[in-house]
């Protein structure tokens, strides 16, 4: 790439430091099976992106590579300009990345508030503190605020194992919003929710502070297109199409994939 005719912004773009998230040629092989192959993706700070695709398209594998649950076989991942490809998951989280899980991964033997408190503690100092939080502990107050935000305040002392499915999904979101998130990966947050819970979810997502960007995996086109500014379509581990929600919705190939069989 020539450097002479480029503005500073373009150069930052080229260096990958202007993006919240930048994937270059990321592949993940399980044995001979390529779950994702050669995925190149850039997301700007504050951008909200939906990732669509049928089951097995590689969406969750993509998330697992971004958060560091597994290392990609090839390629590099940059988070806010920093190469985090070799970083363990917790180092990426401490840099502002968050995620929710498709199947809720919560701490069933702890209360709702303790779950959120742990999420707040994980991205601040004192993770090894042997002292109990005081009555007016700032992080505990934050945890209460987050419980309020996801409408779980009335259940704050309930053990997570005793929550309903929808409430567990809401708690998933609260955990991902703890600390100062800069970029969030939502893995099918609406799966299994009732229509009213869905509209609550849309409200929560649309009311997130503007600087928080996210990628959302969602099967429900109705939800996905209402909470995102851009859409990436995945198919068989490859990026199939990128565009605005409107373009994707009206794209005949996407319609073919989503409505008419979808198998090659």
């Amino acid at each position, binding site marked *: 790439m020539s450097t002479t005719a480029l503005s500073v912004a373009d150069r930052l773009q080229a260096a990958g430091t202007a993006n919240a998230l930048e994937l270059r040629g990321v592949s993940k092989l399980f044995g001979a099976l390529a779950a994702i192959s050669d995925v190149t993706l850039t997301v700007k700070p504050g951008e909200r992106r939906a990732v669509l695709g049928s089951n097995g398209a590689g969406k969750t594998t993509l998330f697992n590579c971004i958060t560091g649950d597994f290392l990609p076989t090839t390629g590099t991942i940059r988070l806010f300009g920093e190469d985090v490809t070799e970083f363990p998951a917790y180092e990426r*989280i401490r840099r502002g990345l968050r995620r929710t899980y498709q199947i809720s991964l919560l701490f069933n033997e702890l209360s709702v508030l303790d779950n959120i408190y742990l999420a707040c503690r994980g*991205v601040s100092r004192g993770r090894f503190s042997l002292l109990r939080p005081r*009555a007016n502990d700032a992080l505990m107050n934050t945890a209460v605020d987050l419980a309020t935000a996801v409408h779980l305040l009335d259940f704050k002392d309930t053990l997570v194992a005793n929550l309903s499915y929808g409430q567990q999904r809401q708690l998933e979101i609260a955990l991902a919003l703890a600390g100062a998130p800069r970029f969030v990966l939502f893995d099918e947050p609406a799966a299994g929710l009732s229509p009213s819970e869905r509209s609550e979810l849309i409200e929560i997502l649309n009311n997130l502070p503007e600087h928080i960007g996210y990628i959302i995996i969602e099967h429900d086109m109705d939800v996905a297109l209402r909470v995102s500014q851009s859409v990436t379509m995945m198919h068989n581990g490859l990026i199939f199409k990128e565009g605005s929600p409107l373009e994707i919705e009206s794209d005949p190939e996407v319609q073919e994939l989503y409505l008419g069989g979808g198998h090659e």
Partner: protein
Amino acid sequence: MADPAENRTVADSSGPLAQRGGGVHTPRENDLGVYGWVSRVPASYVVFVFVLLLLPAVSSSFVLSQIFSWGLILGMIALSLMFLGGYGGMVSLSQMSVAGMAGYMLAILGSSAITDISIGWPWWLAVPVAIIIATVFCTLTGLLAVRTEGIYTIMITLAIAAAFFYFTRQNYVLFNGFSGFNGLAPPQLFGINWNNAIPFYYLTLFWAASAYCAVLYVSRAPFGLALQGVRDNSRRMAALGFNVTAHRVAAFTFAGVIAAVGGILLVWLNGQISPGTIAINPAIDILIIAIVGGLRRPIGPFVGALIYVILRTFSLDILTSMGLAGERFQLLIGLGFLVIVYWSPDGVLGLWDRWRDRVKSRDPWQRSTGRSIDGDDPS
């Protein structure tokens, strides 16, 4: 509705400043908190504490040292296993080795009847150094063990326990081989002979109660909560910014301190330490104690230890009175273990919880405890 709360959340936790603000000490609230805490202690607990304190007045010195002191010491060592297993989900069979390491180090660094080996440091130097060495030993065990999960953690810690046992038995230069060390005794201090049954009982009671309170306290502190998070879901903990491996190793360090203190008290009680103290059988006994008592709460190991010690002390008499060989006391312990594990996978504590819940559910004025009953309620 979500908007203002969200924004505040993000601002509140945006860095160390917010945290420092939260750490500001407000004496008034804190004092109220302590008062509130004291007034909430149930009467049954107060009675229990008084019983423990007044035991020396009613029991013989044999019962005091061979039942209660011994039970409290084994309870402490099992408590270190309960902390790892109950809160951390890691079952370690090497906690008795950690206690033994502390005991051996005390014998080597302090004074014993084996004057060729013992260096003869004063107790105030030998005891802390012995505890530190044993804690480091436990941490190193943790470093090896936390790379694995479940049955493999048990196997690695069992291997370490076995290796340490055979090493002490074969090494005569440092560990004095098969016969080990004798002539070990707690120091004279404040004009009290701590070797006597009553002072020694209070000494063990103090340290056992301290260990119990420490575990109870830490279980609700960030470190303990995070450990329970690791137990429930280690993958999610990593996705919340926790270094799961470091947390597990730190849990071994914490448990190591408790086991080491128990080990010091154990050699003082027995007056000796030899490879038999830390053999595979005692290591497994600690696991049995913790499981029989219950791994869910820190009182469990002490309940288990008391049952174990009573069985161990009196089963010989019971068996001989029934015309059986007295050395078959392990049979009784084994049967007791089978019965308890069969009826209540979460130990005696589980039985107690279910009994209490049933009594409460009969009484319409008592509200439910809100605790989840994960065992099957036969009623």
